[in-house]
């Protein structure tokens, strides 16, 4: 790895030359170094990816994929893929995805998707990446929208026939949307 030795200008101001990599001077952070190695030069090795899918969904919903589903469609899917761990009505003790309505400001707050989560987009993002727990990332986009809709319906946030897609889901107003202080 001869290029590894060539990443810094040493304290005498000598620059090692490397043939294989392009160097970028990191002047903005030069004061942030450990020791006195001098100005850091970093190789620019980042490549343009061929295929890269953006799976991170934020409240603006911009990363939501095309597709749709309603709670009515989601019910059977939920029963076969989710109910074993979360209960038929989402209230499996110790693993609830529903319940706790109106409890957050009380003496015994009970945090669930419905009572606590500020954004409905989070539910889509999380089911798509992490559920069902025993078969992650196995649901299609339409199935994910439908199950998301069903969990929202279990929490009485939307109606059975409301269709969730990249336009409607970000507009769902969650009961505890105003319950958070942003930054300390």
């Amino acid at each position, binding site marked *: 790895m001869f290029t590894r030795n060539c990443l810094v200008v040493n304290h005498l101001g000598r620059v090692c030359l490397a043939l294989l990599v392009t160097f970028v001077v990191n002047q903005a952070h030069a004061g942030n170094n*450990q020791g006195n190695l001098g100005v850091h*030069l970093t190789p620019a090795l*980042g490549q343009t*990816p061929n295929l890269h899918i953006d799976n*991170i969904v934020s409240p603006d919903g911009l990363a939501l994929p095309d597709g749709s589903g309603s709670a009515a469609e989601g019910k059977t899917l939920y029963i076969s893929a989710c109910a074993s761990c979360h209960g038929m009505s989402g209230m499996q003790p110790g693993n609830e995805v529903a319940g706790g309505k109106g409890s957050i400001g009380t003496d015994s707050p009970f945090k669930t*998707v419905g009572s606590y989560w500020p954004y409905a987009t989070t539910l889509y*993002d999380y089911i798509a990446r*992490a559920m069902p727990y025993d078969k*992650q990332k196995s649901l299609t986009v339409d199935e994910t929208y439908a199950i998301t809709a069903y969990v929202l319906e279990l929490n009485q946030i939307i109606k059975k026939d409301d269709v969730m897609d990249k336009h409607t889901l970000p507009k769902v107003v969650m009961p505890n949307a105003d319950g958070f202080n942003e930054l300390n």
Partner: protein
Amino acid sequence: MTEHVAGNGLLNRRGLLKATGAGLAGGVLMPVMAPVSAAEDWMTTSGAPMDEYGAPSKHARLKRVNIGAHPYGSGAGSSSTPLEKLNGTITPNSLHFERHHSGIPDIDPARHTLTIYGETNKKLQFSYEDLLAYPMETHTYFLECSGNSYSNVIFPEAADKTVGELNGLVSCSEWTGVPLHYLLDEAGLNSNANWIVGEGADAAGLTRSIPMKIATKNVMIALFQNGEPLRPAQGYPMRLFVPGSEGNVSVKWLQNIKVQKTAAYTKDETSKYSDLHVDGKADMFSLEMGVKSLITSPSGKMKLNRKGVYEVSGLAWSGAGGINQVEVSADGGNSWATAALQSEHRNLSLMRFRIPWRWEGQPAVLQSRATDDKGNVQPTRAAALAKYSKSNIYHYNGTQSWQVTQAGVVKNVYA
């Protein structure tokens, strides 16, 4: 004469050295030459040959404690560092606490990449080999789960457990990796680049948002822990390391960094790692870990088997920076003495403190209280609990109290 520096037996350090002869060892020992016939086996027979990857002595095998999993997901759980069994400040890699949401993935680094995209000039992808070619930094940092010490929050009666079982979701390592700002500079940040969102490649795809102010400070893509490549349980081949912040944001198995105008409001930063107040409002992105300390010896479930001088020793840390002072009390907080800080001053790292203490069978309550270099003082348990709603288990940094009974039994108490 030993010098008392606070009530109920706390001594100055010279006291320990003077007291050692009489108090600790019970008199000066005369050296005795062992007769050859009394030699142990290991003196007379050649030992084991060289070994590719060493293991601890079979007489000193330590284990993680408090291994617990979610009832509906065996990979969603945690294990804790046995703090009472360790000394110094570095946690051996095999004993670093764990917190996973869908188990530990077995990642082939040749098939793993890190992509930076979003509000950047360029979308960039890096292989593991690429990252190894960047300039790196090495720092000793603590890592603490924001749910650490939850037992002392949720149980109405103090749980009779060890310090590791109670507080072992904190560990400390020498971390080596590539400063994140090198890669962000290479990608070029747009004017909307206010947050980064890190995403893991594990089955949970754990995802957390971090304000750019923190992300460009001292965050690194960590590749080595205590000199060796990261362990799978710590994110092999690469993890985000966000020093001083709650452990969950140091996303393991890091595969994507999305640069955004806003936070992503992921499940883990809304459902889980947000701190509810009594008024029903919760803090989000309250990342900094508060100033905290613990006495690790004597500590829960230990027994003092002799009277005399003991070294009280423990750990202190702060997510705000360095530790300026640790005080110790042997009388439940009535009087305090300053302990010696026994590690080289380091920011955002565990610090070891020590102070001698004479125990003659008197009942005692041992406590420690740390002050960091920003002037933050560790709160009492009552003050720490008063900050949040009763149900909130995160960011608890109240005083840990150990009761010592006349029989020498050491026990967790709320004092």
